[in-house]
């Protein structure tokens, strides 16, 4: 990866994180942890990997995206606003009616959001449906799906995994934000040890790319390149080993940062931390 591109992605990720914590501080609390862990992925997708037109969010030729871990709405909203889908000021309206930015992503409210999510597991199926629709229509666009690791405790994820493989949805590229934590505890605690996501998706018939540095923009970027050059019939799962609350020490060190309160003063401190991460 060229140095300039990496700089650009690092800066974009830092800006996304700054906006995530800032918008949450305006309402006082929100889903910080799972938004920050996915910020680098968002930077790569909206920083060039995804084909979209911010001025025409429903352009038919766009790549589709489903944020199945819908509570990470803030990280998507930050990326969309920074990319120009809607004015930056709109970020200040998160969860304050009549807002276009509800906690969980909603296809009928927010420009750039292709599917309504929030009840976990369902985005896996809707993304598979979108990818199948594009395939049936002979369209070449990609469908991107973002799953949470705790979300994979939902049986529907595995119903969808089998379906996507059976339908040979090879332009479905999924990401698993494997930050290791859910609301109550660590993922391993509820699953009896190592969830072995890479092996599980491989067993379900997916092309799996395991990215141990899941918060490294260069590693994510290269994984997406690799997914796009894959020429087989399987859907692709990119397992991103991430850190919940990544980039903000206050969140990273909390026992649970899934949903946490954030003051405006804390947001300013966080922004200073993120500014250091731009290079």
């Amino acid at each position: 990866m060229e140095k300039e591109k990496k700089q650009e992605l690092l800066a974009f990720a830092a800006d996304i994180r700054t906006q995530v914590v800032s918008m949450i501080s305006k309402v006082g609390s929100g889903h910080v942890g799972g938004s920050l862990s996915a910020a680098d992925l968002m930077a790569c997708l909206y920083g060039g990997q995804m084909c979209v037109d911010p001025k025409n969010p429903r352009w038919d030729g766009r790549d589709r995206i489903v944020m199945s871990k819908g509570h990470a709405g803030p990280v998507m909203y930050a990326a969309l606003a920074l990319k120009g889908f809607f004015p930056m000021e709109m970020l200040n309206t998160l969860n304050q009616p009549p807002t276009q930015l509800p906690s969980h992503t909603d296809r009928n409210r927010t420009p750039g959001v292709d599917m309504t999510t929030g009840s976990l597991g369902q985005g896996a199926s809707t993304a598979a449906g979108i990818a199948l629709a594009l395939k049936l229509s002979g369209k070449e666009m990609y469908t991107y799906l973002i799953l949470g690791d705790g979300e994979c405790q939902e049986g529907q994820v595995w119903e969808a995994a089998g379906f996507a493989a059976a339908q040979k949805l090879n332009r479905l590229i999924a990401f698993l934000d494997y930050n290791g934590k859910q609301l109550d505890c660590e993922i391993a605690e509820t699953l009896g040890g190592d969830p072995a996501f890479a092996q599980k998706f491989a067993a379900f018939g997916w092309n799996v790319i395991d990215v141990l540095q899941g918060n490294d923009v260069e590693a994510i970027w290269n994984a997406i390149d690799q997914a796009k050059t894959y020429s087989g019939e399987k859907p692709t799962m990119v397992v991103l080993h991430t850190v919940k609350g990544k980039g903000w020490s206050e969140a990273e060190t909390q026992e649970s940062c899934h949903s946490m309160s954030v003051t405006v003063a804390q947001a300013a401190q966080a922004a200073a931390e993120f500014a250091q991460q731009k290079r």
Partner: protein
Amino acid sequence: MKKAYPAALEALFAKNDKVLSMDADLMRAIGTVKLWRDHPDRVIECGIAEANMIGAAAGLSSEGYIPLTHTFAAFASRRVMDQIFMSCAYAKLNVKMIGSDPGVVAQMNGGTHTANEDIAMMRTLPDVTVVEVTDTVALPQILEQAVAQYGTFYIRLPRCAVPRVYAQNARLILGRANVLREGKDVAIFACGIEVSAALDAAELLASEGVEATVMDVFTIQPLDRGAILEAAERTGAVVTAENHSINGGLGSAIAECLGEGCPVPMERVGNLGEFGDVGKLTDLMKRYHLTAKDIAEKARKVLARKQTI
């Protein structure tokens, strides 16, 4: 119905290239295997994974396809309620869900497969149209109109042969209750297999000098309030009949409508809040008090109440 359903789908395929059929391993049960072989690009086998089927249908519809999903009513409703809620209804998508063999029509599949609560569940969801197919004449018309109207639909459908209610040239309009017989003494509102039972009940009553109005309320949501209120006002006595629990179904919907708009004596025929069981349709209809005799009995009861007012 197992012939009429694939035939209706075939006609829809020919008319609209966006229409798809999806099933959760029950194509042999509903008679669509040949359709699948003939149109492998239009029929999607989803396997025994109903939640995924509903979600995938929502995704397909967001790209302009019009999927008709099928599984047994028990699985088409209670197993996938949250998927219907969020991925279809809340997301304002265009999925047509067919739940077959509701209530006692489940017959030998028994209590586990008997959906007596599906109408009640669907009716609580905003923007979901709830329809029950009356016979093979109604079926293609209902499917065609459901496809033509954007939105999430739940369509109840028996698989077995059912008595013919409509003449071949009868025309059904979604959202409008159909008057099948006019009488001044009592109004019987029915849906599904209870429509023909209601017509038989009206014959029994006629022999006793009682003139009954019979209406097929095949669209349960949104309810044809105007027609129901008019018939209730005209007759002053109402009986509802449905192959579903009396709690939350057609009877409840009509009671709510009349309670607010035209309170008259009313009796409900339907499952009285019991689980289903295995059995033959005729036996189950007797056991759960769904026969023409049961409807006539309720009509006599409501007429007695009317006279004491």
